[in-house]
């Protein structure tokens, strides 16, 4: 229920009314400049890409668990679509595995999580939460979505070109990336250029919007933490992506114009006379300069979403709002000077490794502070265990595991043993998969009623949660053991060449138990995939058939996004809201209800 005082009409109301002619279908839904439509466009597209990325991994896991055996169900389809070099007799070749692996990472990170966490939720929620009529630059907003789609299409098309998609990992290290025959890598670079452009335009829009379009009374320290999280994320994208763009341009030059930015002297490359004189390490520095802030881009919006849901479902203010804000700012700042902890094994030298190790250890502090504040916010709360809350609660220990397991990787001496093993995969997936993705699911269930006017089914939400939670842990927990036993990443056959069965009499082989975990993990992945079916059906079914909400503020939340009509009209607020209080005034003593909206006088 919107609580706008109507003491005087908006000065431009009359002129405005004549502007709003009826928009056609294309204008309203395809070429929209409304942040809510764009947010939903981003959301649906990103969820589809997440599903696709999961599908790639489901196929890869067959090869890991049962190497060189034909894939059931999809094997013959793969052969038909991608040719017998890639998938002869339905068996996944090692090169196909590599390209699926590279694209799984790329798609999940750049086409899935970042658009969903930053662009989708940010677009839909941020203008509403700050009391703005839209983003500062609506047409740039549309352009950024379209750029994203083009980038995604280029990535998808690359699967079908001769030679297949990129195969040099999502990290695209030179000289491997440059010296591959075929154009898969070139398509990858072009796709990345469009995705980077999309992110940059989005970042400019978000930052300008938050700086300029906060409603009267919405001071910086009254912003919901979600907005702060998006603000810091915007800065990370703005300043960290361009060096990767520069590196992508240089790698494109290496590939197409036969330059040697990243190719050292003495390298033999078939079919081209190269000058040499370049540096493979230069690529790594430029890539990870983005790569590290990128992971904070993946986690900060998720922390923001969890914060909003925790406050609302504990019916009490968040503990340590200021600490949360300052920690987010410090994380943003520090994230730019930790990147080379991804490069400990490149022989940089101990002095510089020490520098990065130190900054890496320091950056864990604000992350722990944020997690602690969120945990402490539960104490004494009147907790409502609805589906969004279940996912938000699960985020906390899952992110905790992910974060803590990062510490041995942050130390140079232990990373020597763990680098490029399955331990790393387990660590970052714990943070992103049962971490960020759970927070994003929570966000979908939470804001679905605001966008559609209906709840998603609570029963199927709990089924989705329970199954996902169990299988996520079954997928990633064993990988810690596998990694510590020495199982390396990116092995299409699951490491069978290094198993004790295949290397009798050698020390350090992978034991039968460790090898068997491959089957456990693969089975869990397939079950995890099946667990998403209730979510997909629930999502689409509830749009038309979900239980209708009783009011515009069904969760009884305090933030401005819940003080609008449902769904919010074009322009969001009939009259500019005026903010009088902080974002989490729940259970204020003496108040008639247990929540006080921000714009209540």
């Amino acid at each position, binding site marked *: 229920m919107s609580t706008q005082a109507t003491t005087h009409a*908006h000065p*431009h109301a009359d002129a*405005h009314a004549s502007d709003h002619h009826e928009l056609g279908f294309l204008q309203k839904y395809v070429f929209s400049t409304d942040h809510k439509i764009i947010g939903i466009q981003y959301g649906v597209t990103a969820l589809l890409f997440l599903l696709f990325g999961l599908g790639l991994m489901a196929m890869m896991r067959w090869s890991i668990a049962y190497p060189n055996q034909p894939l059931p169900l999809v094997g013959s389809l793969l052969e038909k679509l991608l040719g017998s070099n890639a998938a002869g007799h339905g068996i996944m070749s090692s090169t196909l595995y590599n390209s699926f692996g590279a694209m799984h990472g790329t798609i999940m990170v750049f086409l899935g999580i970042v658009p969903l966490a930053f662009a989708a939720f940010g677009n839909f929620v941020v203008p509403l939460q700050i009391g*703005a*009529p*839209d983003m*500062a*630059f*609506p047409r*740039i907003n549309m352009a950024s979505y379209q750029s994203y789609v083009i980038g995604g299409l280029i990535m998808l098309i690359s699967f079908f070109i001769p030679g297949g998609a990129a195969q040099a990992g999502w990290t695209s290290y030179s000289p491997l990336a440059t010296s591959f025959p075929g154009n898969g890598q070139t398509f990858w670079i072009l796709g990345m250029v469009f995705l980077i452009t999309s992110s*940059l335009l989005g*970042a*400019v*829009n978000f*930052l*300008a919007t938050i*700086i*300029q*379009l906060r409603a009267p009374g919405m001071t910086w320290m009254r912003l919901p933490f979600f907005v702060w999280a998006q603000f810091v994320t915007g800065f990370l994208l*703005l*300043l*960290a*992506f*361009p*060096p990767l*763009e*520069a*590196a992508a*341009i*240089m790698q494109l*030059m290496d590939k197409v*114009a*036969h*330059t*040697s*930015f990243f190719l050292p002297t003495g390298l033999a490359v078939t079919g081209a*006379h*190269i*000058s040499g*004189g*370049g*540096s493979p390490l*230069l690529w790594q520095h*430029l890539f990870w*300069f983005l790569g590290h802030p990128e992971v904070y881009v993946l986690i900060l919006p998720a922390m923001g979403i969890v914060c909003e849901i925790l406050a609302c479902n504990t019916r009490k203010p968040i503990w340590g709002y200021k600490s949360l804000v300052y920690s987010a700012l410090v994380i943003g700042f520090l994230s730019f000077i930790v990147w080379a902890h991804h490069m400990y094994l490149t022989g940089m030298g101990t002095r510089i490794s020490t520098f990065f190790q130190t900054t890496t250890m320091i950056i864990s502090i604000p992350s722990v502070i944020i997690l602690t504040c969120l945990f402490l916010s539960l104490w004494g709360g009147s907790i409502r265990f609805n589906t969004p809350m279940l996912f938000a609660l699960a985020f906390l220990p899952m992110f905790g595991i992910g974060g803590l397991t990062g510490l041995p990787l942050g130390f140079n001496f232990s990373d020597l043993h763990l680098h490029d093993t399955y331990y790393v995969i387990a660590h970052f997936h714990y943070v992103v998969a049962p971490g960020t993705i759970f927070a994003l699911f929570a966000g979908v269930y939470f804001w679905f009623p605001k966008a559609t006017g209906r709840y998603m089914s609570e029963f199927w939400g709990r089924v989705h949660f329970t199954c996902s939670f169990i299988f996520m842990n079954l997928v990633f927990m064993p990988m810690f053991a596998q990694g510590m036993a020495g199982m390396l990443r990116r092995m299409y056959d699951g490491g069978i060449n290094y198993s004790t069965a295949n290397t009798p009499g050698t020390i350090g082989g992978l034991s039968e138990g460790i090898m068997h975990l491959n089957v456990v993990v693969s089975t869990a992945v397939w079950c995890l995939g099946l667990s998403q079916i209730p979510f997909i059906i629930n999502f689409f079914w509830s749009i038309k058939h979900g239980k209708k909400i009783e009011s515009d503020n069904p969760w009884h939340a305090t933030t401005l996004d819940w003080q609008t009509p449902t769904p919010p009209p074009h*322009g*969001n*607020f*009939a*009259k*500019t809201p005026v903010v009088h209080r902080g974002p989490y005034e729940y259970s204020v003593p003496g108040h008639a209800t247990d929540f006080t909206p921000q714009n209540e006088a």
Partner: protein
Amino acid sequence: MDIPYTSTPRPDTGLFNAKVGIWLFLASEVMLFGALFSSYILLRVGAAPGDWPHGLLNVWLGMTNTIVLIVSSITVVMAWASLKMKDFGRFRRYQSVTLVCALCFLGIKSYEYHDKFTHYEVQLNDGVTVQVKDESGATKAVQLPTKGVLDGHILENDADKMVIHGEIVDKAAQAQVTHAWQESKIPEMEITVKKADVKYMENYGPWHNTYTAIYFTLTGLHALHVIGGSIVIFFIWGPLAGMWKTDPERYTNRVEVSGLFWHFVDLVWIFLFPVLYLL
């Protein structure tokens, strides 16, 4: 509800939206060109002694281009100032000079690129004899040692022979060069060489060495920004000029914002010129 602060500044920040937007965008551009400059430093510091060429670019052309951009910088800010003083005609005249300067810059740059694409390094077989004609017109045969190299522009290119306007490269002397000012005046001669004696030849495109690679990448990206900026300035100057009548404040702000972008482009060149041409 309309989006506020599109023309009038917001009281607490003192800025209108597009100004915040363009400065944020320029911040990202600083990081983009900064990464390329960092790469330049890295590649140059890591190059073996003598491997980093000097004197490949014409300093006068570069200096002219620098001055052209500086002129365009002042005309673009004068154009905005004219609008502030409500003089539309003056704005149009100044901005047209800006656009002419942009075209000038791109023209000179194209000529420079063309010059590099027609500049060849010719590697010869061992023990080859070439015919050298110096300024006086006298021709003499010069026998080159192992791995002789010629460097210059091709005057004639027949089936069996080639005439190059350039020099015979002295690798040892070249390795001594560490500063641009050390480039001694090697006289340019006309050298005739048989095609059969040529082992491999390559022009000074981006592939030739890391210096040309970073040169073409940096200046190419910069040129793309010049093109983009001039398209925007042209669009505001031409097709969008009607907005001056309907919403002069918004129009002036757009001119200011496009001017900021243009100044950034000039700023990048101010650093590119000494780094690539003089050092």
